[in-house]
């Protein structure tokens, strides 16, 4: 990695500094390299520990842990399909809600906002990221869930007649996939918005001026000159938000209803992988149960890894397109 340019740098250093500083530099280099290596080593060690713990479940249950919907601890059946489904659906729902809002906020702040308003709004949006997730969960239980049950759900189902579709049908209990998606959207929003805002602000002034000079309206300028330039950064922000949504545990557990069933309706309660682990880990006594929970953790690990890989690929694709 650093091996190739190293000789050139050292000769430069020798010319510029006295001997002691060179030793200082060397120590500095070793310390920072060690810091950089500890993190990957930690990730690998965690992965090994999780997969080793999960191995008995994988070898005994095979693929059924991913495909089966039957999670019955007493019968020794561990099918996590509803939890995997719930994690993916609630996170997707969160992105659908959060992305337009977050990008809207970012565009407003970078393009339209008067300067005096930019700081306070940006600060408040960023503050959303600092709220502990259990606080979101409490807010979910006491404010969001009753609001959904008494106002939003009946409105969607009966007034807008969306109850005819499978996605908004069934009784409105409150705790539901919809509640989880909304909570996650609020939690993911500041990440997407903060990254998008920064990349939009980093778009060179000349880019904007060129578009305006060609006779573009303000909206055309943003659409054709600013957003394409910032696209890869915005996608990176969305993926960061998705990462947050996939792993979130506490707030989701408090509002999703914890029911291991796959349902098309967003009004129905659901389950997520992180909630499943958090709920059952402390009282898991049988070895297979414990191993199955670690296996769910391993699957979540892999899903997060795939999401990150896809994000990298997307960012790379987008930036390559722009370069061409």
């Amino acid at each position, binding site marked *: 990695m650093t091996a190739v340019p190293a000789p050139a740098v050292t000769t430069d250093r020798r010319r510029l500094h006295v001997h002691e500083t060179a030793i200082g530099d060397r120590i500095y280099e070793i310390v920072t390299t060690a810091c950089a290596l500890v993190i990957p*080593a930690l990730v690998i060690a965690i992965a090994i520990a999780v997969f080793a713990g999960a191995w008995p479940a994988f070898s005994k249950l095979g693929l059924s842990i991913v495909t089966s919907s039957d999670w019955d601890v007493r019968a020794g059946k561990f099918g996590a399909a509803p939890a995997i489904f719930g994690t993916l659906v609630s996170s997707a729902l969160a992105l659908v809600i959060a992305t337009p809002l977050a990008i809207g906020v970012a565009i407003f702040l970078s393009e339209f906002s008067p300067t005096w308003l930019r700081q306070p709004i940006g600060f408040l949006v960023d503050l959303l990221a600092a709220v502990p997730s259990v606080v979101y969960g409490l807010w979910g239980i006491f404010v969001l869930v009753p609001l959904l049950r008494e106002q939003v759900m009946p409105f969607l189902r009966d007034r807008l007649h969306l109850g005819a579709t499978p996605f908004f049908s069934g009784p409105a209990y409150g705790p539901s996939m919809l509640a989880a998606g909304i909570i996650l959207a609020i939690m993911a929003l500041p990440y997407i918005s903060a990254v998008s805002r920064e990349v939009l602000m980093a778009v060179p002034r000349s880019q904007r001026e060129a578009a305006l000079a060609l006779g573009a309206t303000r909206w055309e300028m943003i659409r054709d000159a600013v957003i394409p330039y910032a696209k890869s950064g915005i996608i990176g922000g969305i993926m960061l938000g998705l990462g947050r949504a996939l792993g979130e545990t506490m707030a989701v557990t408090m509002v999703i*209803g914890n029911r291991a069933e796959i349902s098309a309706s967003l009004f129905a309660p659901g389950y997520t992988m992180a909630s499943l682990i958090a709920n059952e880990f*402390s009282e898991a006594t049988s070895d297979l149960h414990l191993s199955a929970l670690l296996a769910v953790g391993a699957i979540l690990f892999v899903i997060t890894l795939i999401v990150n890989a896809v994000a990298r690929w997307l960012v790379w694709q987008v930036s390559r397109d722009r370069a061409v």
Partner: protein
Amino acid sequence: MKAVKLAVFVLFAVACAKEGNNSSTASSTSSSSGSVDLTGAGATFPYPLYSKWFDEYAKLTGVKINYQSIGSGGGIRQLSEGTVDFGASDSPMSDAELAKAKFGPILHIPTVLGAVVITYNIASLSAPLDLTPQVIADIFGGKITKWNDARIASLNPTASLPSSDILVVHRSDGSGTTYIFTDYLSTAVPSWKGTIGNGKEVNWPVGLGAKGNEGVAGQVKQTPGAIGYVELAYAKQNKLPIAAVKNKAGKFVIASVPAVTAAAAGVANTLPANTDFRVSVVDAPGPDAYPISSFTWILAYQHQRDSVKGKKLVDFLNWALTYGEPEAPSLDYGPLPSEMTPKVKAKVATIDFAGAK
């Protein structure tokens, strides 16, 4: 490049070695340090009472006990591995779990009793709802789905029951509360035993899962038509409406500390002399017994490996059984029936230090 690879390898090896050693270093530090004398881990349910006991005992004798309320499962696992001096559980260990313990036989020392109550949200009710085990099983099993079902109405002829749907709320996290509740239904209702059964987490056919007593209580409180189960102590401290449950003697009983102790008394008299106290007191005989009751246990190895710690543990258990018990009712736990205490103390006396260093 080579150096980097080597460094990664060394770091990783160190990390692995550390991980492998973790448990042994943890236990050796706890035994050598002077600040904590005994460590325990396990059930969350008796934690408020235990922490009060430990606090008073430390003031009285200077013996400090560190208890981590990480859940019964974790307590059993840590005791089996020998990383704590004692464990605590809301459900008795199974034979398979006992067989896995690394340091010989484990004793179950009952400390206090807890109960599980049924709470509901029906605004139109003025008196407590009367329920039989069969009706409870049918509600939580999804066979009764409306509040004005004839099976509920016939038990409560004077109550004005709504025609709304019943929303069942159960625990989503593995818990001793669920164990006691499903153990009761398995004992009192044969059809429940064959289908859903008992456990710290079971496969509920209907309803929503909420985390913790506070989660269940919160969901029930918020949702008209909801029904759920929580610990007696939690329900009393939060003044939740609770149902009267028909006991084995045919009487409808509302849970209370005396009714819970009465349940244990009914069973205690029938215990054989050599009992291991892994007994269930659900659906107990006796006219005043509240049927959804259970012991909670402290778990300890019969053959202690460290005579100093072993002695401290035995002293504490004897103190708790003598002076700790009377404090239980103030925190809404049922004390052991008085006729049972000598038997439990006799069991504590069988703890020995023969193999100790």
